[in-house]
């Protein structure tokens, strides 16, 4: 393998990790919400809210971390709207989630209009890890170029995935989370407050969607434009199905998607691909991530439906204590 090919591959992997990180946050957030038995299709709207709030607060305070907090809070509050309809009012979760997506889009379009022209927002920092180069063999060749200097959100993502996996599968709270999504009546009978926990995890999912948005507008593409998520919130919902509700597979899907999303840009540097540098034909390449989502669902949906695996059994079903019927 010659040097250019190697650099090219590194570019793709590196860009994939960076572009996939916001998506990872959103996917993990939705995964947690769904594990609790609530389907929240409003991820796109919450991400936009997180992106705008993060951008605006970072811009006005000069502190990107305050921006992240604001973004998470804004999206979290929106998610509670969905919680109200889905959990307390026992409404149709599909319709409520759709409404949330619309509200988020509309709200950010109006409130964000004055931020569109701003370019110099305080961003989340990159982290230098020069010591990675000192590791023999793979240090200077792989670890250093890939991870030696990346944005902090990337490392947050690396931390989040094992943490969430451990939380779900190895802790008492995670056990409760699994129980309320699988069989809320059993959890209720065991003395677990299903309603309170479902609100909590809807909120957590919302905050992670907010983090996804904020990391988009403060790190990956540091600016604000209307609809800047370009469907990533919806892709996150799809990736949760692809992931079979497992955080590790969610990470895999997010990073693959990230790489595919960047592909048209990366391929422009490859001279022997005639059409890659042609922006018109490049539109075909831009379709790949969306088509990838569909293809991923084609393979995972049937599997999931056949084995009845993965999907929390009570997903999308409001819990009513003592509902009668067979």
């Amino acid at each position, binding site marked *: 393998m010659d040097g250019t090919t190697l650099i090219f591959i590194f570019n793709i992997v590196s860009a994939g990790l960076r572009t996939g990180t916001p998506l990872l946050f959103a996917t993990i957030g939705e995964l947690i919400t769904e594990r609790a038995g609530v389907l929240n299709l409003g991820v796109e709207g919450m991400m936009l809210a997180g992106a705008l709030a993060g951008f605006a607060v970072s811009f006005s305070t000069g502190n990107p971390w305050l921006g992240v907090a604001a973004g998470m809070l804004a999206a979290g509050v929106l998610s509670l709207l969905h919680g109200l309809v889905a959990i307390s009012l026992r409404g149709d979760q599909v319709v409520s989630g759709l409404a949330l997506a619309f509200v988020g889009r509309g709200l950010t379009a109006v409130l964000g209009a004055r931020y569109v022209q701003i370019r110099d927002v305080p961003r989340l920092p990159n982290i230098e890890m020069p010591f990675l180069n000192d590791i023999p063999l793979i240090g200077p060749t792989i670890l250093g170029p890939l991870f030696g200097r990346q944005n902090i959100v990337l490392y947050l993502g690396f931390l989040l995935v094992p943490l969430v996996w451990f939380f779900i599968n*190895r802790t008492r709270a995670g056990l409760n989370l699994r129980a309320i999504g699988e069989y809320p009546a*059993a959890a209720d009978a*065991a003395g677990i407050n299903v309603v309170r926990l479902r609100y909590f995890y809807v909120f957590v999912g919302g905050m992670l969607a907010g983090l996804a948005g904020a990391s988009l507008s403060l790190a990956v593409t540091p600016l604000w434009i209307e609809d800047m998520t370009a469907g990533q919130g919806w892709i996150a919902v799809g990736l949760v199905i692809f992931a079979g509700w497992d955080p590790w597979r969610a990470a895999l899907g997010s990073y693959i998607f990230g790489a595919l999303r960047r592909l048209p840009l990366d391929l422009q540097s490859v001279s022997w691909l005639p059409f890659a540098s042609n922006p018109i034909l490049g539109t075909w390449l831009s379709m790949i991530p969306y088509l990838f989502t569909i293809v991923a669902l084609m393979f995972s949906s049937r599997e999931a439906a056949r084995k009845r695996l993965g999907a929390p059994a009570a997903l999308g079903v409001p819990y009513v*204590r*003592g509902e009668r019927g067979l």
Partner: protein
Amino acid sequence: MTQLDTNQPYALVMRGIVKRFPGVLANDHVDLALYPGEVHALLGENGAGKSTLMNILSGLYRPDAGQIIINGEPVTFNSPRDAIRRGIGMVHQHFMLVPTLTVAENLILGQDDIGFILDYTALEAKVAELSQKFGLAVDPHAKIWQLSVGEQQRVEILKMLYHGAKILIMDEPTAVLTPQEVEELFKTLREMAAVGHTIIFISHKLDEVLEIADRVTVLRRGKVTAVVDTAHTTKAELARLMVGREVLFRVEKKPANPGNPILEIQNLNAKNDRGLPALRNLSLTVRSGEIVGVAGVAGNGQVELAEVITGLRPAESGKILVHGQDITNKPATAAIDRGVAHIPADRTGVGSAPNLYLDENLIMKSYRHPPISKGWAINLSEAFRQAVQLIKRFDVKTPDVKTPARLLSGGNLQKLILARELSREPEAIIAVYPSRGLDAGATEAVHRRLIDERDRGSAILLISEDLDELLSLADRIVVLYEGQIIGEVPPKDELVDEIGLMMAGTKIQAGD
């Protein structure tokens, strides 16, 4: 209503309990008093208010009025957690176990005296120890869905003991067990009572109540009708107290007069929802004018059998013939058009459309053909006219035809389904758990209709988990075990033990 003697050393007293649901007074000043160490039966028909009362005791519902006193101390439960803390444990009819979790995980669910990070080795050891102590053998590492129903029940009991329950509520625990498993359960219950646990045994089966309980509180329409010692009562008296009138224990019927084979099933194989074999080489013939009962523990292929016959589930191999015509793997309309009626197990989930009106529910099977069909359209006035007639003929109690089906009670909904299925004068009827959850009156109506259909010449396949129902209705009984027909017996009461053994998988030549 009986007066409570409050000087007695009761383990538990519930006094003047009132619980109202929209349109239903489920508990009307109910009193219940238990001695420590007794097995106390709560007897009543479906809808008598037993489950409501017990849901109040386990903290799921809050009573509108009334008092709960445990060991002389008044208590209020705001949640199941409070009830668990007070030593009350309920084994629900539908087990409160999370299928995807392990036995150990289910036991510790909701307990907060364990660390935040779960130490599985220690937990499983503790569970194994407990299961040894109470003689309730289960593998702590197994996932719930991998266990048989009897094993799951053991886990439920173990869970309650793990939670420190002193008062154990068993909600219709025998409904899903084979006769032999029932014996084993009774042994466990007696042992627990002997060491001082108090057991509330909910049932509507009189024989069981007489066998296991020391005393019985009888509920009818939300009220206590009597508290009696089982030593001083009879089955007939309990039945009268429960239903409010004398009850026939058997439906009267003429001997069967079987004619030509109508429904023929040959070497049928099919898979369940998980993709595992549900029916294996099953062959069965139902003749005109006979009721063939299918006995078996739930989950041995009953629902799949009904679905394959009616075209709702594909057959992997084998043949299904109706009147000699092959309908295997044809669309569901093939069975419908050849006169196969289907009374499904799940009345609300499959048998009806909850928000559609009664007339719309009644044309589900007939809208494709005249007179309901009129070219591309549906003859709405004809549908309405027919609905009015059917509702009258089948005695469906409803304010009017334009009522959503979800507002009907269980018994009336079943009558509606019968009206739809039987009014088409079917050649064959597949009836799955037709009287489940119905009170005595509605059950009798269902049984009467089925026998009338048999006498009219229909071929009836009756799938039921209630042996009494099978023994009283069927002309012959086949036993289904793991998707196979493991044997056939005539419907004689004295063969109950054989049927039970076959339900548990033992092959016997009945009548030998």
